[in-house]
């Protein structure tokens, strides 16, 4: 079975400017990503990153190692908020190969080790095609 680097990916430190870019790009109307005072009304200490960040870093991590064309399924659940200033590290937990496909569980943690997302993925094993 193939061996994989671990962690798979360490994101750049997420900035407020990135949140602004994402808000505009996604046409996201939720001010919880832009205004601290609004976010505090939700009980948050400050603005939070869009869920897109954690999901995308998990997807990018997997694509980098197995190739985007091979991936058949990606499920990501968000488990904790991501804040500006956070760095996301994506790690592979378990890998299981069966026939021509490989399944894995993944986790994404912030710089304090708090899990912000967990996921499962399935891809075609390149050597078996």
């Amino acid at each position: 079975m193939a061996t994989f680097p671990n962690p798979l990916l360490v994101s750049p430190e997420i900035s407020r400017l990135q949140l602004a870019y994402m808000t505009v790009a996604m046409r996201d109307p939720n001010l919880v990503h832009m205004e601290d005072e609004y976010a505090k009304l939700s009980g948050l200490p400050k603005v939070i990153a869009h869920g897109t960040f954690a999901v995308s870093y998990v997807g990018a991590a997997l694509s980098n190692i197995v190739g985007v064309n091979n991936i058949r399924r990606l499920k990501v659940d968000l488990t904790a908020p991501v804040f500006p200033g956070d760095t996301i590290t994506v790690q592979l937990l378990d890998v299981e190969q069966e026939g021509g496909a490989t399944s894995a569980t993944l986790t994404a943690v912030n710089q304090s080790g708090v899990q912000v997302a967990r996921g499962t993925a399935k891809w075609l094993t390149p050597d078996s095609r």
Partner: protein
Amino acid sequence: MAIEVGHVFPKRTFVVEPHRVAEYVTALGVPPENGWSPEVGQAVPLGFFMYVTSYGAEDVHDYLDFNLLNTVYGGTDAEFLETVRIGDVLTVAPVVSSLTVKESKGKKLTFAEITCEYINEHGRVAVRERSNTVEKVG
């Protein structure tokens, strides 16, 4: 207006334009040397489908009518059946595929699942993406 499972939103057809992928990649802060330089013909990054589900989806926000202050994105479950490339034309008609209401610690939690099937120019489902949005009240 009550949310109905099975509600289908208007169909929309769009081109996966390089500049939209560029906006997404820029926002993520991922350098182009990772193979994400957006050019026609390149495979679209996986997370793009969660992102693309959101743009042009104002009608979904309006229909759910969730209070944004109490709403969080729960996650995504995507099946990739065919490779989608920058420049491809996709058609999608989002559907409310599930609605679940739970009570927890005095709060009412409403989970809405929206399923998007992205159909390519050959009439085949290329990507099936289910996203979950949760509204907490109380």
